[in-house]
């Protein structure tokens, strides 16, 4: 078969693109590992941040940022998961009234597409109203609220985590064979029982995939945290924040997550401390890798079941 020169060039360029991809990945990962491991130490992981010197604005550890990331992820998903699963069940098992199903389907797509900075603005507009100051803190006696707290940021994070939960759950629920539903109905079971005992358990790996995708999105978001949790990277959490009875106060306070810590410590932020920024970036990347490994495992399990 004659192979034209232009075809050879085309294949060659595609190979070059593939090589560039591999090299870019290798460079970024190596850079993170080398720079990150140089900073990471036990004290760095378990200490609290402190103001540094003139040249390097941030010193100390990143424990509050790690805790902040886990809190925002946990609270965000705690809100997003039941809502998302509910929407998914409605869109697959009920679909009536039809106009609502169509509208909700489009709404989920739109929520997927809205940039997180716009969610941050939305949260600011809502949560800064005085009567909502119980989830953040009042601003003096202006009748406004700060709109900066773990509650505020987690509620907006829930909107970011929701679309992947809906879409993955939807696909998984559709994968549950109709015969199983028919069998349950034939046994005289109602709809709720069928969904609870047959549909949801059958769709579990797909639902879990959605949760993991949502966790990855929430953990990686910076804009919402920056505006709705404050850039309070150098501010230590309130005394005794880890005690259960202080939980409410802690969740109403400002804080930081790994992403805002990186942003603050980068040369673009006020901290200008590459060292700690590298360390936090490394930790965040480890979190993202764990999330992705979980995803690969879940998708393998799904294939194995079929």
């Amino acid at each position, binding site marked *: 078969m004659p192979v034209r020169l232009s075809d050879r060039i085309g294949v060659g360029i595609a190979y070059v693109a593939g090589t560039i991809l591999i090299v870019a990945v290798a460079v970024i990962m190596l850079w993170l590992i080398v720079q990150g491991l140089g900073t990471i130490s036990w004290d760095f992981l378990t200490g609290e941040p402190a103001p540094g010197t003139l040249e390097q604005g941030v010193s100390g550890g990143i424990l509050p940022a790690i805790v902040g990331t886990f809190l925002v992820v946990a609270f965000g998903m705690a809100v997003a998961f039941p809502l998302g699963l509910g929407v998914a069940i409605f869109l697959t098992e009920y679909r009536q009234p039809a106009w609502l199903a169509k509208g909700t389907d489009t709404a989920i*797509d739109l929520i997927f597409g809205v*940039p997180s900075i716009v969610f941050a603005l939305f949260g600011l507009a809502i949560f800064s109203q005085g009567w909502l100051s119980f989830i953040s803190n009042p601003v003096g006696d202006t009748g406004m609220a700060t709109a900066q707290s773990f509650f505020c940021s987690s509620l907006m994070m829930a909107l970011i985590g929701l679309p992947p939960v809906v879409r993955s759950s939807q696909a998984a629920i559709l994968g549950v064979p109709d015969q199983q539903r028919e069998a349950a109905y034939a046994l005289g079971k109602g709809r709720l029982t*069928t969904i609870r005992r047959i549909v949801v358990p059958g769709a579990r790996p797909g639902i879990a995939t959605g949760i993991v995708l949502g966790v990855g999105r929430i953990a990686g978001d910076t804009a919402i945290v920056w*505006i709705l949790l404050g850039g309070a990277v150098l501010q230590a959490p309130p005394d005794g924040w880890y005690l259960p009875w202080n939980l409410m106060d802690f969740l109403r306070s400002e804080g930081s997550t790994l992403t805002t810590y990186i942003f603050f410590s980068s040369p673009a932020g006020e901290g200008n401390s590459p060292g700690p920024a590298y360390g936090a970036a490394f930790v*965040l990347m480890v979190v993202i890798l764990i999330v992705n490994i979980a995803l690969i495992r879940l998708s393998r399990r799904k294939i194995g079941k079929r």
Partner: protein
Amino acid sequence: MATFTRPLVEPRPQSGGASATRADGIFRAVLIAISAFMLIVIAAITVFVFYVGWPSFSANGLSWFGSGDTPLDVELGYSFLGDPEGGRYTTLNAWPALLGTLLTTGGALLLSFPFALLAAIFIAELAPKRLAAFLDPIVSVLAATPSVIYGLFAILVLAPLIEQNLIPQDKAEQISPVVTLTGANVLLGILVLTLMIAPLMIAIFADALRAVPVKWKEGAIALGCDEWRMTRRVSIRAIRPALVAGTTLAMGRAVGEAIALSMATGSIAFIPNPLDGYFFFLEPVRSLASSIVDYSEGFESPELKANLFAFGVILLITTAALTIGAKIASRAAEKKLGGS
């Protein structure tokens, strides 16, 4: 992508037994309430962001979209602190920020589309099976990597490289009365957005390429096409809707990216001068989204708040249009590939 429709399997109410109990009814009502809540959320986002941002549009009319004599940064500063006489300041000419978003997004799309398409062809068609199986999860990790990490990479690794190699000292001094040239500029913004959106596009394109029916490819080979010709003539044509869907999705990401651009573009609302030749790309800009982050400490001033929310309105409209465009395109993609 699965279509989310199939005939419903429902219990028949007249079949007796335990059909519609009270719990079933409550459950159904809860689900309807949750789904209706999603519509309320979208409506509330639109209403609130428009409501707070509206004064900025109404005070400036169409000149909001133009460029004024006063630099945008000065205007935003005045709207925070009041004008020099201490009065309120509502004038805003947002063209520099609009241009910043257009330049960085457009540049990133021009750079990442051909690259992503070629890389997707490499992964889906050309690469040995083992290498492809290894690259697949890596592409998804890259797509999931937080933008702040790409921003950090850009400002700590790429910015010094650009500053040392691409900006000659004499030219920098010549331009310095107008604007200071650093490693953070349009070019770096384009690069960081490319890093962000290329993996997303690769993942979508490669998935679509794999969904092209094998029969079509075999047909092409049987007619004497080699691998490349088959890819170009059959596969790429078949996945055109997916190319549109993936690109619009990536564009939405790029338009709304605030943090990475705030780190990478120098954060000065400068209008790069096309007459400067390739230095056009080495001058700083600031996009709509990163302006919101950069001025996030000034929300207590109502004028600045209105201006920043007005930026949010533009982002909201743009991304909503892109989302709907992507949806239409992916429907077309399903139709095209689903029927075989």
